[in-house]
């Protein structure tokens, strides 16, 4: 399967100039490796879509047949990662409340402008999950924002299971939790019964041969989740939900990441204590009114979570404001006191770690996929443009050839 995808991929990437089989060297004025210190005057050697070497330009031996991309006046960094989104799919919220067996893979719309725009902003990996409205919402899909079909875009099909602790309209939290427990308990009971049946099969000696009972295919995802083999992405709208999620994860022994609502900073200490990783909401900074003191208080989520020692990734939204860009979110975090390296990491390496895919991307290191963004300046500077995006070794976006950008940047009104 993977070979087939690989082959398909090489075809698409070929359209962009060269294939992933080519050897490529990117010369960069500055490399923001994220995992280590920045490298001034560096070079990155890419083979088969993966980073083969990274270092000072003079330290990298450039093969004779290498294609060289000269970005020596530019800054190169790993592509931004969107660790949780429900955009780019058709209706992400299933009405039936327990559908662990569905996957966003089946409803991704490859031509959604969202993906095109993500690429333009230097995002190279996206985790598309079911929305917050379904209790047990199904599996997500890790994508690259490039390709003509879902298959071509897919990095990991059926990654993690989305759960939501947000009660549906007309339901209370107690009812919601009771419903989740019922699902889990019935699943455990089902597994227990299945085991029992399996044990009983060989003893049924006298009767006719029966095939051993098989697991219902619809229950497989859930079984893997409760068996600790599949990570849960648990949406917690309120801080009390965080505690409930922890309670559930301990009782039912599953692994999880938290997708938190804005008030959940109140539970930051509890999250830190359990060493959980979180995805912050796009509205990371918000005002609230202290009605007693008639005072306005600014809550800065990244700062609070950083201080509490929690590893976090940031979401973006679809507004026409800065909050729709990962770099802007990172800049906002820096503005309010988060160290620069942590802010950049939360949009790259930490996001990859939240995805449990840090072995594949998130930083510029040997062995990782060559998902690179070539920038005209510092990553957190508003004046910086994404000049090129390299996805698994192939250039898939060039600002010069971006027709849409060209159009909105026209000085004179055309036509």
């Amino acid at each position, binding site marked *: 399967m993977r070979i087939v995808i690989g082959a398909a991929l090489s075809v698409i990437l070929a359209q962009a100039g060269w294939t992933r089989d080519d050897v490529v060297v990117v010369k960069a004025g500055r490399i923001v490796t994220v995992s280590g210190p920045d490298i001034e005057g560096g070079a990155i050697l890419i083979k088969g879509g993966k980073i083969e070497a990274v270092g000072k330009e003079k330290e990298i031996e450039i093969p004779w047949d290498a294609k060289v991309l000269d970005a020596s006046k530019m800054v190169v960094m790993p592509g931004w990662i969107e660790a949780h989104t429900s955009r780019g799919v058709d209706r992400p919220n299933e009405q039936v409340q327990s559908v662990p067996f569905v996957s966003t893979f089946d409803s991704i719309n490859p031509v959604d402008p969202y993906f095109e725009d993500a690429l333009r902003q230097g995002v190279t990996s996206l985790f598309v999950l079911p929305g917050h409205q379904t209790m047990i919402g199904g599996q997500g899909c890790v994508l690259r924002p490039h390709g003509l079909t879902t298959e071509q875009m897919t990095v990991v099909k059926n990654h993690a299971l989305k759960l939501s602790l947000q*009660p549906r309209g*007309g*339901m*209370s*939290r*107690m*009812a919601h*939790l*009771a419903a989740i*427990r*019922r699902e889990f*308990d019935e699943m455990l*009971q089902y597994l227990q*019964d299945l085991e029992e049946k399996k044990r*009983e099969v060989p003893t*049924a*000696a*006298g*009767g006719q041969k029966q095939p051993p009972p098989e697991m219902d295919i619809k229950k497989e995802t859930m079984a893997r989740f409760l068996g600790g083999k599949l990570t849960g992405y648990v949406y917690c709208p*309120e*801080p*009390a939900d965080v*505690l*409930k999620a*922890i*309670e559930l994860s301990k*009782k039912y022994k599953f692994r999880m990441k938290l997708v938190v609502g804005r*008030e959940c900073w*109140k*539970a930051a*200490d*509890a999250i830190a204590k359990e060493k959980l990783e979180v995805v912050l909401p796009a509205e990371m900074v918000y005002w609230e009114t202290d009605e007693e003191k008639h005072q306005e208080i600014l809550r800065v989520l990244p700062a609070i979570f950083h201080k509490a020692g929690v590893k976090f990734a940031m979401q973006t939204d679809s507004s026409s404001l800065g909050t729709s860009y990962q770099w802007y979110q990172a800049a906002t975090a820096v503005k309010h006191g988060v160290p620069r390296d942590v802010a950049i990491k939360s949009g790259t390496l930490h996001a990859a770690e939240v995805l449990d895919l840090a072995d594949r991307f998130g930083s510029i290191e040997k062995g990782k996929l060559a998902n690179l963004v070539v920038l005209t300046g510092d990553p957190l500077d508003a004046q910086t443009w994404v000049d090129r995006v390299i996805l698994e070794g192939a250039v898939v976006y060039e600002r010069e050839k971006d027709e849409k950008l060209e159009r909105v940047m026209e000085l004179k009104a055309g036509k």
Partner: protein
Amino acid sequence: MRSACALLLIVGSTLLAPFGAAHGRQDPPVRPARKPLAIKGAKVYPVSAPPIEGAVILLDGTRIKAIGKDVQIPGDATVIDATGRVIIPGLVDAGSSVLVPRGDSGTSGSAEHDVADGVDTFSEEDKEVLQSGVTTALVRPLARGQFNGLEAVLRLLPNRDPQRFYLRRAAALKMTLGFSGADTSTAQQRQQDLLAARQSFEGAKAYKETWDKYRKDLAEYEQKKKQWDEQQKKTPPKADPPKADPPKADPPKPDPSKPAAPEPLKEEPKKPAKPRVDPRSEVLVRALDGQLTVHIEAHAADSIEHALALAAEFKLKIVLEGATEAHLVAEAIAKAKVAVILGPVFRYGIPKVDYVNHAMDCAAVLAQANVEFAIGSFPNPAAGHSGSGASRFLLEAAACAVAHGVAPERALRAVTLDAAKLAGVDRAVGSLEPNKAADLVILTAEPFDSAARVDRVILAGEVVYERKSD
């Protein structure tokens, strides 16, 4: 039955087990062994006994060690001089919904819903409630329907110490008859409620029977299975049984010392099909078995009468909640020996159906009829309340009862010991006695005096509120 209980433990252990879900804003401070705390000089209302002038209360850790006129104060004790003050037990609001999200009131309930799952430990709405002297709260699920869920008893510890925050989980099963929380309650509503309640209890009975039968069948099956297995060993399957008459084995000699061997089985016994575990029915079965008290909210006089009838029909242990028109049927309640958690005392707005006959002298009538009662805040939107602020005025609610003829001691008991009793926590809180929880309130004057202010609140042996001198 035992295995049903075991199952319940597996399935619903979170319902009942006091898991550390009360994790709060911060971890409880790890404290070295505390010095004992002594409060001297005050007039003390132990509630369980007559008031004592100039008593000493000695607290050791989270409990009361001694109380009386001549208690020795240890040398290392911290002493609070409360001369001129009045001390009462921490108030118990048996009609509270503090920390329970208000939004839940529009949702549909079910017997297995646990209010503790909805309690928002991050909310600080209990702060003022605690400052008014309420240290313990019986909270109920806010939901629609006949079965609303399981109630819980909270101790309003500011640090949310998970060990002590839930004093009792699954304290009672909350039901509602003929009251929807809005202004639509009618006889028809009650009829529906009763019908559904009866069906549910009948269903639970059937559920219990199914499980009892399953367990019986299972035991039987296991025994037979053993026999079958042994039988199989004796006649190994390898040996093809001859088609003709099998050689007759000698009939086994009867052994008088052993019971008669069972008849040989002709075919392999079938394992009985296991019924589904239903968390809702599990709870109802406990109510039917008398292990779980049922608190029935009913306001109209006829709703109350129907509640009493339902209790008699299914042999439920019940307590009435709200009971706005209890004064109209006090005799019937007394006769049924049912207790009442009365409230709200304060009602606002154009009266909704259930509150048209709301009367300030209801408690007095119940007292006269010898009905056991507590007074709770019951901040019900249908009575014009919003939020849980009514809990701050529990003493005032009791004072209103006094104005209409309830003896002051009895009124105080209605918000302390009697309330604790109806919440099932009177062994721990509600009165000032040795070995009970060190939850007490120091007042600046007699409890029902208009000059009475809460001076200090001591909860689990710690001063959790101290009035700023103004």
